[in-house]
């Protein structure tokens, strides 16, 4: 992979990888650092990378490996869904002009809901959490996740199924969509 191809790869897959890193590290700054470390590692190896292969899958493998071996550095800080009122948000001068949300209030509620979901997912054991992030944050297919984690396809499916069961249970206990 030459420099241009690498740039292209970053443009095409960078967002998925960064999203995955932020979710996995459970912290924006730590996730950014994990992303930078991952891409740096890839850049160092870019001459050995073949862009006909699934480089994104390899990149996520590197992220997982880095995160595992550097867990202290990316300090696992369990996120707690923030209790942020609409008034607080307005006071901070936050702008909510999402076309899909329509109103400031809806936008805040949506963001709080997203934070809540992220917090619940973050509580899952790693073996369930990582495949969920790969699927939803990094937009990976199940077979790609299996390849990336070096585990059988059926194991990925089992873990995803179990993860969703746990999430449903937790969300329902919290009174969510019961």
């Amino acid at each position, binding site marked *: 992979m030459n420099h241009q191809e690498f740039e292209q790869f*970053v443009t095409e897959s960078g967002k998925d990888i960064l999203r995955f890193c932020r979710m996995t590290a459970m912290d924006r700054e730590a996730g950014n650092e994990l992303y*930078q470390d991952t891409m740096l590692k890839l850049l160092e190896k870019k001459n*050995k990378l073949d862009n006909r292969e699934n480089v994104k899958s390899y990149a996520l493998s590197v992220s997982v490996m880095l995160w*595992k071996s550097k867990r202290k550095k990316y300090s696992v800080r369990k996120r707690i869904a923030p209790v942020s009122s609409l008034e607080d948000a307005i006071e901070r001068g936050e702008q909510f002009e999402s076309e899909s949300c329509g109103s400031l209030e809806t936008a805040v509620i949506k963001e709080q809901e997203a934070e809540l979901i992220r917090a619940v997912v973050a509580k899952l054991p790693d073996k369930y959490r990582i495949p969920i992030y790969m699927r*939803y944050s990094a937009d990976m297919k199940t077979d790609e996740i299996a*390849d990336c984690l070096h585990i*059988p396809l059926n194991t990925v499916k089992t873990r995803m199924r179990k993860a969703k069961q746990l999430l449903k249970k937790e969300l329902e206990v919290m009174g969510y*969509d019961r």
Partner: protein
Amino acid sequence: MTDERLEQLLETALAPEISDAEIRMKRKARNGKMNKMMKTGLALAACLAVLAAVGFGKGYFKEKDNSVSVEAMEDKNTEEKDGRVNTVNLTEETSEEKTIKSFTLTAFSAKMDENVEVPLIMDNRQEWVIGGDEEQNTIHYAINTFFKCEGEDIESIKYSVEGGFFEIEELPDKSIITDAQDYTGKLQVTDSCGLVDENGNNISTARFVSEYTLDYNAQQNDTTFFAVHGEKEGEQWWSDVLFYADMDANEAAEKKAEIYTELLRDMEITCTVYYKDGTTASATIVGYGKAVTFEEAGIPLEENGEVLRRNGIPVTPNDKMAMIVFRLK
């Protein structure tokens, strides 16, 4: 909650927008000489080992010939086998008479001997974890240990370790430890992640000790796990081999085995059994790395239609993997 609703929530919550500016690289690549060791993931040890709390009492490692299984086995209930085959004969003199006593020491249910290597781990297994420390240039390891003694008239068993320390994870109300000596050595003891339940909640306490004692009749339970930790100053090429290994997988296996041996060189676990008549006997356990073929390790290359792959490539019987093995000294 419907599956569709959950799917929608996850898609929305876990895929926030990211701008083009955020994915720009902010650092330049280092050259090889600048590579530093990885940061220690000591906590990872317990995490990985314990997150799969399913592992307790299931005997991941079977006896020789099929002592290591592919990860596809992970979610199945593998039966623990009785590994007792022979006995280790140890002699002990008392003031009154010379008696010959024997006991069998097993690791992961496989009998240990001076000439029998019990494979402990393979790559990506959850019984073992390794991490590095960028600032301190060290490599730390943590290996789950499942030792068990069998013999007659044994009252209690003490395990002590040189060149490392033990971590014990247990539920406070289900402790089987009758005595323990806190670790006060120079190695850094880091918080472990502990035992978690299926919802990811921590439910255990961790103890870091240099020795611990168990009653013969209560050597194991489903909520106690043991790990041995150690640390060594690494060489710069270790991190590439251990954590990134983009070299040929067989070459990497050889190098990993070399590193494992070096990491465990100073680690010795002594098992001392206390007999009811007041006599004792002991055996010393050592560990080291070994590169073996998948065929030698007895690992099935295909299971339930799933082909075992490494870096996306199907594994062949002659492909090598690095293992840690234990044997009696």
